[in-house]
């Protein structure tokens, strides 16, 4: 039914890659919260990735796996400042989505603004429902 499902957790994704240095970093990797919305023409992924811009975001497509990866810069408070409230953790982002076969892989587009990623994945032409006209015989 759906073209996309999210499967891997960040840990799995981490062990799946051979980039050991990325996994051994002290900074943790988090799964960005995402909405997936489907229309007749396309599938949209909207992901929250605060701290990420177009330069620090990587989107890779390998076979049917679409991976979004964001690198967040460390924040350094002014000198002599100490943390008095720690409510949210800061880390990098990584999430892998599995695409169905019926998407146009060349047509995938991503826009990132205000730490929010908007991905558009167009469906392949043949899967877009077509109206079949029936003529009376």
């Amino acid at each position, binding site marked *: 039914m*759906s073209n*996309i*499902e*999210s499967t891997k957790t960040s840990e799995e994704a981490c062990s799946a890659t051979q980039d050991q240095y990325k996994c051994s970093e002290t900074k943790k990797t988090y799964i960005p*919260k*995402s*909405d*997936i*919305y*489907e*229309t007749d023409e396309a*599938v*949209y992924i*909207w*992901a*929250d*990735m*605060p*701290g*990420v*811009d177009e330069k620090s975001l990587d989107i890779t497509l390998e076979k049917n796996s679409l991976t979004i990866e964001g690198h967040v810069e460390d*924040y350094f*408070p*002014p*000198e*002599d*400042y*100490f*943390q*008095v*409230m*720690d*409510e*949210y953790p*800061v880390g990098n982002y990584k999430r892998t989505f599995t695409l169905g076969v019926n998407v146009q892989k060349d047509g995938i587009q991503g826009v990132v*603004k*205000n*730490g*929010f990623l908007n991905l558009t994945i167009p469906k392949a032409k043949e899967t877009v429902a077509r109206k079949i006209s029936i003529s009376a015989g």
Partner: protein
Amino acid sequence: MLDQMTYWETWDPFHEIRQLQEEMNQTYYDQPKETQKNSPLFNVWSGQDGLVVRSELPGVSPDNINITVEGQDLTIKGSLKPHETKDRERFIRRERKHGDFSRKVKLPYRVDPEQTEAQFRNGVLTVTLKRPQEDKPRKIIIKSEY
């Protein structure tokens, strides 16, 4: 940890319970989130001359963020409009929050509203608050006994 939190006088023991409840609702009922009031989370640093408050507000336009400072209170309010979608049924996954958000915290000391600066970059808000000059801790020189 707890000491630091209680020091802020705003530590709400029910916050975590509410958060858990919200997560449960989200998981099991997938309720529309428009009606739920969100409160953004803060990371705060303190120093001799002031404070730095940071909060993640991904997808929010800077025009939709309202910051007010009054005495010891810092209030951050705003809203995140959901994407215009014709049909709610066509959501395959819905994890992001949207709608109105607001948070008020009591700062450990008075800050000067005139000197407050805010920066919004890549969905992260950074508010820099300065302590008024007259309130800054002063070193007291002890006069020597004769």
